[in-house]
């Protein structure tokens, strides 16, 4: 066992970010899923030796970790953050940093940096200033900076959440290769990513593990995959708008830039005509799919992109819905969940 956690709790002043986590992590790729603010980052930081648990026992390689020997943990594991941050200087300086503080001889550093840049598919980029890197390149350099240290455990916090699909798929490929030689723990809301990469998935909610198992067993994954849309968000006059495949969704979180959002199928209202409603999002399109599961019906509506709405069997019958019928969907701006 790499890690063993018993009753690990972390509180910040009034907030309990993690509550009594019991967990063991072996030689595996572990995915952590859940909405933002449920404790994914806190859990990773504890595994990384960057935060001390308020209560509970954390063991690494059977050795109990305390505030005194956290440095030992940090020599063996490395974390990658959601937004990459760089030290002043070029790519080389940044990747070499960890090796230099380990007193690695310069010729070896040079060799290692070149090798790891190849690993992340950025050969020859060593002398580029980090300020001149694109978002995708930044995250790949951050990955290289961690991998060059050959850590026993690689911890990643939403590494691809702000990236375009091209860069995200490169990172996924690198992670798959690296999973051969080290333990990987990845927090993500990219469920296809976690399904492909992870051997085991934890579903975290309000600081507690709700579900745990292989990706195909975790119900959160199957439920979660509905209505997830990447897009570009802008925030004007207190309302955020995200453009998704030609339609504009309103939501409340004040964020700008590339984001992913999720609308729960049970939060979507179906109506035959336009309705006057306080819901800020209303779209019209044909029904392109109907699926019945455990007494509820999932109706797919193509309004430019496909939304899945969950209604009861009774509503479905009463509304006399059928494939191809034009219908309205509506949901509140506050039902749009930022991932």
């Amino acid at each position, binding site marked *: 066992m790499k890690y063993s956690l018993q009753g690990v709790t972390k509180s910040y002043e009034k907030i309990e970010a993690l509550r009594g986590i019991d967990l063991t992590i072996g030689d595996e790729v572990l995915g952590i899923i859940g909405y933002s603010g449920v404790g994914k980052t806190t859990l990773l930081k504890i595994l990384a030796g*960057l935060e001390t648990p308020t209560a509970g026992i954390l063991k690494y390689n059977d050795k109990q970790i305390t505030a005194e020997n956290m440095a030992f943990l940090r020599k063996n594991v*490395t*974390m990658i953050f959601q937004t990459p941050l760089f*030290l002043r200087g070029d790519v080389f300086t940044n990747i070499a940093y*960890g090796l230099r503080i380990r007193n690695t001889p310069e010729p070896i550093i040079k060799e290692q940096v070149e090798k790891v840049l190849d690993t992340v598919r950025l050969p020859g980029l060593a002398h580029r200033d980090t300020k001149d890197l694109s978002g995708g390149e930044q995250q790949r350099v951050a990955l290289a900076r961690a991998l060059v240290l050959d850590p026993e455990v690689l911890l990643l916090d939403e590494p691809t959440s702000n990236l375009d699909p091209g860069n995200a798929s490169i990172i996924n490929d690198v992670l798959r290769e690296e999973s051969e030689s080290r333990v990987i723990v990845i927090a993500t809301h990219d469920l296809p990513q976690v399904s492909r990469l992870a051997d085991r998935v934890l579903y975290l909610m309000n600081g507690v593990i709700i579900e745990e198992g292989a990706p195909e067993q975790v119900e959160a994954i199957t439920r979660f995959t509905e209505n997830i849309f990447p897009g570009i968000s802008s925030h004007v006059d207190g309302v955020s708008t995200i453009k998704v495949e030609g339609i504009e969704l309103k939501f409340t979180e004040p964020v700008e830039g590339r984001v992913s959002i999720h609308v729960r199928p049970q939060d979507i209202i179906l109506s035959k005509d336009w309705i006057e409603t306080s819901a800020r999002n209303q779209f019209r399109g044909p029904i392109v799919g109907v699926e019945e599961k455990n007494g509820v019906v999932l109706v797919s509506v193509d309004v430019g992109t496909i939304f899945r709405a969950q209604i009861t069997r009774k509503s479905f019958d009463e509304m006399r819905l059928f494939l191809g019928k034009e219908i309205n969907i509506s949901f509140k701006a506050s039902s749009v969940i930022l991932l």
Partner: protein
Amino acid sequence: MGWQTIVAGLAEAFRLIISLDKTVLEITVRSLYTAILATLLASIVGLPLSIFITMKEFPGKRGLKFFFNSMVGIPTVTLGLFLYSLFSRSGPLGTLSLLYTVRGVSVGQAILILPIMVTFIVSAIESKDQELRDLVRTLGASEYETSIAVVREAYSGVSLALVSSFNRAFAELGIATMLGANISGITRVLTTAIALETSKGELGLSFALSFILLFVVLALNYFINWLQGGSS
């Protein structure tokens, strides 16, 4: 008195600088020396202290920060008077023989600028948030290496703190007067000379010295600006 005096002072300043007037040169060099020494002394204490304040949690941390914040604007004469009574022969620190010496003035100025230095450096380091600390720590940095990295990343704020401190020491009058007493050839610096020449009615020389003072401050700030531009 009018614009002519100022223009004449400017002309006199140029003349004195170009002719490398011995007295003016000596006063200017002494001013630079005391202020540089003061900045050095203050950094020996101020830099580690600032790092300690930002990196560690300890009781009284807020109080200490508040103390340094409020001492930023301490009147130089008040501090000068206070130190005068400490340094005077019969005072508690009289045996150090600091009174009426350049070293004494530097020590006084160092105490004067310490709060500016600490306040500026603390805020520069704090602006480099927790994320930077987490980054270098997860790459394996020890607490010591982390503090080095944070100071290096807060470089522009730290150098601004050092320059502001130097400027304050270089341009202050109260401590140089109280502890140095404006002894010609020994402790006379630009600011005390200006005060003396003005009281004697020698406005031309006063203006000349003032322009030299200004020139040094501007040149230094320009230099720092250029340094920062070149490195970032």
